[in-house]
């Protein structure tokens, strides 16, 4: 994929906030990921490097360092269950197992139809409403129990098919 003129414009509009263009890198990667199905196609990396006037390797370093950036495709709904201490105490493992059962995938995998991918994630700052799930780097589903997962998956499938795709 090539950076669209709109995306390029959105990225360039961030430049005046900072003394250096490089500072826009994380924001630019978020923008690209939102527009390209929740992950970062490889071809965009040299284009971003050129736009921000930094070496290509610096872009890769940042992509691989931060857990919210994905260099491989994720599902239209990327589901991440927090398995840090407060969520584990409130039953996060059983929630992960329920997703594995309903979706027939393991953390790190994607369903064959590309609709869902599953992962575990570190603390999301929602410990008072544990266990918590993050959908597509965008919203939280809080206070889950294994019994909720069938209904939740059905709802997310419905939303994703009516909206084209869930924004990442």
């Amino acid at each position, binding site marked *: 994929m090539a950076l669209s003129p709109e995306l390029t414009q959105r990225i360039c509009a961030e430049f005046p906030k900072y003394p250096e263009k490089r500072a826009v890198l994380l924001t630019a990667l978020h923008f690209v990921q939102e527009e390209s199905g929740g992950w970062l196609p490889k071809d965009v990396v040299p284009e971003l490097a050129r736009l921000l006037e930094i070496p290509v390797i610096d872009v890769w370093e940042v992509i691989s360092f931060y857990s919210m950036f994905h260099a491989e495709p994720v599902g239209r709904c990327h589901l991440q269950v927090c398995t840090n201490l407060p969520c584990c105490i*409130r039953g996060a493992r059983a929630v992960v197992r329920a997703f594995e059962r309903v979706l027939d995938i393991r953390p790190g995998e994607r369903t064959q139809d590309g609709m869902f991918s599953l992962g575990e994630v570190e603390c999301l700052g929602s410990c008072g409403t544990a266990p918590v799930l993050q959908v597509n780097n965008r919203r939280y589903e809080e206070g889950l129990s294994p019994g909720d997962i069938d209904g939740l998956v059905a709802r997310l499938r419905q939303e994703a098919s009516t909206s084209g795709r869930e924004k990442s």
Partner: protein
Amino acid sequence: MPELRLLLPPVGQNWSRIADYRAHGGYAAAEKALRDMKPEEIVELVKNSGLRGRGGAGFPTGMKWSFLPKDGRRPRYIACNADESEPATFKDRQILELNPHKLIEGLLIAARANTIDAAYVYMRGEYRGPFENLSAAVAEAYAAGYLGKNVLGTGMDFDIHLHRGAGAYICGEETGLLESLEGRKGQPRKRPPFPAVSGLWRRPTIVNNVETMSHVPHIVANGAEWFKKIGVEKSSGTTIFGVSGDVVRPGTYELPLGTPLRELIFEYAGGIPEGRALKAVVPGGVSMPVLTAEQAMQVNMDHQALSTVGSMLGTGGVVVLDERQCMVRAALVISRFFRHESCGQCTQCREGTGWLHRLMVSLEAGTGASSDLETIDEVTRFMDGHTICALADAAAWGSGWFLRRFRQEFEAHVTHRGCPLAGTSFEV
């Protein structure tokens, strides 16, 4: 007993929109600071109030500000830490979602006090809702003349920029945050130089947490003595405690520092479900040494009191574990977290966090040896205090203190060849 809410609006209310914030006295402190106070007076006031950083380390805020060079060179920056990623911490999120103008007003006063040109609020990438809420509030503040050129007609220019992180605990470390803001991997910098001298883009920078900055308006409005009267010696004011784990009413509670931990757990958070017994409490985010039930029942939630029982206030994120729970599993989850989040720069941390996690997994699986307990001790000593930043210290304390305070349970995992509490404990 009701909470004492200085940072947050009353329960059930949301003052995110500027009209609501102003209707409750919002921005009066900024008007006072900008029109009637000299910058050095504000710094002195914050110093005298005893305000200490609410991000985990508890460093005196006014003193941090006074480290900025006095040479008058510009620009100078604030990097506001809204990365909130210490596990069990969800307090700054409350401010960002319910009272974002409090933070903006705090930043504006701090900018006046320290002759700052711009503030960058570094927000954890996962906080999408809080980001949008704060963005809307910042736009309102620009429209109302509290930000931008010639703020309130005083001739002061001040901008606030929001900046999203992308999922890395280490970016909550102040120099990791600066690296990330500049568009790099969040690998912490060696100090000195400290950020006050050479921070963002090598310019003088103060780094303060969201809650810390949000205390500044009411200190300016009511005075240092007023703030010091709330709380206890060396721990002034309120904080937003987060309570999670085995309690009836998990959530956040804004209370004076010095509140007994027993009250926080048993009164505010409603105690432990079904009358089960308390076993252990992590008092300030998972980096801080765990307390036994006996310690937890006696200690107050302030800097001094927690240090007397060998722990720290940290972020005030309290995790409660009841009698069913396995301490090795708790240590395992914490060690897994730090292994995932080590940035990899320092050998002690990169290797030590992995080593600790592997040892915990082995103990939990029943394949551990009693010599592993000595190894854990040794590895944590090798990590603590020997690295560029405090992540290794936190990793060493977070799981190492579970071993020191619940050693018998670790030994039982060796002798039983597995978890004696497997039938009742949470799963990892």
